[in-house]
């Protein structure tokens, strides 16, 4: 039988390309949103990237490396520091944030490479995050400690980004680029290798795949993504404080990954959106937030262990993970 294997072109609404519509719809938000909602939209994008970066390491690579707040804080502080002390403009400072985040990721990867796994890795990376926070507090001459380090005026390619709306569009651009880039990564050989390492490290190594390189790559990519998110966070809030990068913060990141869907890129986006927007909804019950937070996560874990994305996946195959590029 002579069969040609041709790629079938799926209809637009059933292929991954429909997701390109999402940023187009999202871009309409500033037309309707007041300043508060605009700010929340910016924060949602920050946390989408945070979750995407984090999920790469704990979901796709399967390493319990909780260094996320360290990457987040380093990205935020480096952005502020580069802008304040080295006169960088925002877009170059963001590149700096990505680079330093990546370096931090490299540092974090060393522990994984040395064979530290599971809870040891979780704890050492948590310790790394808290030590960074101690540095932010006590490195006062540079970080201004607990007073917070303010950002000078944010400009991108000469355009002033003072308003939340301007920041929104810039953030949207970055978010789309980073998410698409990560999507390409996950759906390539690299992504498949990473997930193979997660599923069985020894077997993967025995197939001749250099696990060390892929582990490093994942950590560096994660660190860069979360570093960029930190830079966005700094610009959105205008002032960088050490308290924003504590242990409670990493728990929120963790929750976003789990609620969205571990190992799923779309899950990361969903988790970032839901767990940034929902606590704002719970503002009406002051003091009860921790309680609601805990209850929601317990419910999701018990009934949707693969995260909210699994619910959507039942409805449409678009939301199922595909490890190939069309």
């Amino acid at each position: 039988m002579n069969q040609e294997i041709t790629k079938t072109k799926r209809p637009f609404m059933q292929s991954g390309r429909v997701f390109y519509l999402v940023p187009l719809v999202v871009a309409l938000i500033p037309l309707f949103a007041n300043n508060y909602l605009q700010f929340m939209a910016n924060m949602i994008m920050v946390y989408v990237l945070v979750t995407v970066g984090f999920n790469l390491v704990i979901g796709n690579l399967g390493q319990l490396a909780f260094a996320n707040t360290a990457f987040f804080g380093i990205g935020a502080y480096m952005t502020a520091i580069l802008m304040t002390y080295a006169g960088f403009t925002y877009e170059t400072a963001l590149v700096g944030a990505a680079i330093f985040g990546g370096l931090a990721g490299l540092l974090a990867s060393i522990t994984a490479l040395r064979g530290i796994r599971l809870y040891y890795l979780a704890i050492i990376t948590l310790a790394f995050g808290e030590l960074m926070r101690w540095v932010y507090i006590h490195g006062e001459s540079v970080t201004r400690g607990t007073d917070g380090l303010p950002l000078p005026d944010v400009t991108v390619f000469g355009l002033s980004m003072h308003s939340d709306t301007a920041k929104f569009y810039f953030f949207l651009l970055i978010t789309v680029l980073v998410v698409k880039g990560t999507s390409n990564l996950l759906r390539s050989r690299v992504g498949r290798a990473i997930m193979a390492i997660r599923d069985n490290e020894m077997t993967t190594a025995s197939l001749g795949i250099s696990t060390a390189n892929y582990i490093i790559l994942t950590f560096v990519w994660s660190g860069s993504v979360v570093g960029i998110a930190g830079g966005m966070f700094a610009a959105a809030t205008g002032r960088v404080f050490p308290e924003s990068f504590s242990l409670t913060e990493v728990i929120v990141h963790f929750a976003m990954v789990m609620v969205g869907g571990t190992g799923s890129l779309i899950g990361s986006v969903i988790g970032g959106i839901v767990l940034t927007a929902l606590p704002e909804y719970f503002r009406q019950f002051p003091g009860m937030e921790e309680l609601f937070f805990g209850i929601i996560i317990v419910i999701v874990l018990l009934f949707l262990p693969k995260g909210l994305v699994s619910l959507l996946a039942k409805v449409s195959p678009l939301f199922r993970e595909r490890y190939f590029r069309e």
Partner: protein
Amino acid sequence: MLMQLTISGLSQGAIYALIALSLTVVFRATTVVNFGHGDFVLGGAFGVYVLVVMLGLPFVPSAIAAIVLMFVCGVLISRGFINPIKAGPHIGFAMMSISIGYIFRGTTRSIWGREVLPMPRVFDIEPVFIGDLVITGDAMIISGIVAILLLAFFIVFYKTSIGKLIQAVYQSERGATLIGINVQRFHDMMWGAGLAMGAVAGILIAPISLLHPDLGAGFLIRGFAAMTLGGFGSLGGAVAGGLILGIMEQYAGAYVNTALIDITSYLVILIVLVVRPSGLFGKRAVVRV
């Protein structure tokens, strides 16, 4: 000053030892690290507060009731929240335990939220003075009770048939199932035991630290540091690690800089995991591919 710091360190360390031990008990039995443990420690203390201050019951029965209550909570958590997600990814347990801890903390905050409450204490023992050394009643009570508890624990573990059963399941769950041990019930009991021990720690430390919903947060990381130092999964190591950590905090604070006290735990974790990941008494912690 050195002796005083050592005594104070041992008394603080006893609490860390108890928390580390209760974490290890659950970890060894179920391979789950209870990230919400700090808040359960709090739960024991709040339980006693409610019974003594709000219901007017005498201290010792209240303490026992609170410990039993936390034991039951442990069993319920194991059965209701951990067991159902057994088949999922391992990190699911971490998130679940954190979330349950959040629920505990959120509940205490919505009921007692804004207050910092003094905790009733039962024994008011005068401090003992040996020359310049002060050994307070608190230090003696804490060290004493923790020592008795640890002794009882290790006697049960190594000398009784229940202890042998626990050891058997620790070594091989499959084997234990094959010979008819109800491993699920074992998990529940161990969760209960871990939470009960944590409750004891909470009841002991709350009179000193006062009662407020954030009490538990600091203890968790110290428990981890103690477990890491002693060797993850080693029961004796957890105790040794806790005591050493308590002393190290005191020395670092007095001889180097008080600003270090807070981060001693993190430094210990980093140094131990980089230099000797298996800690003092632990098993191989490193995976070589």
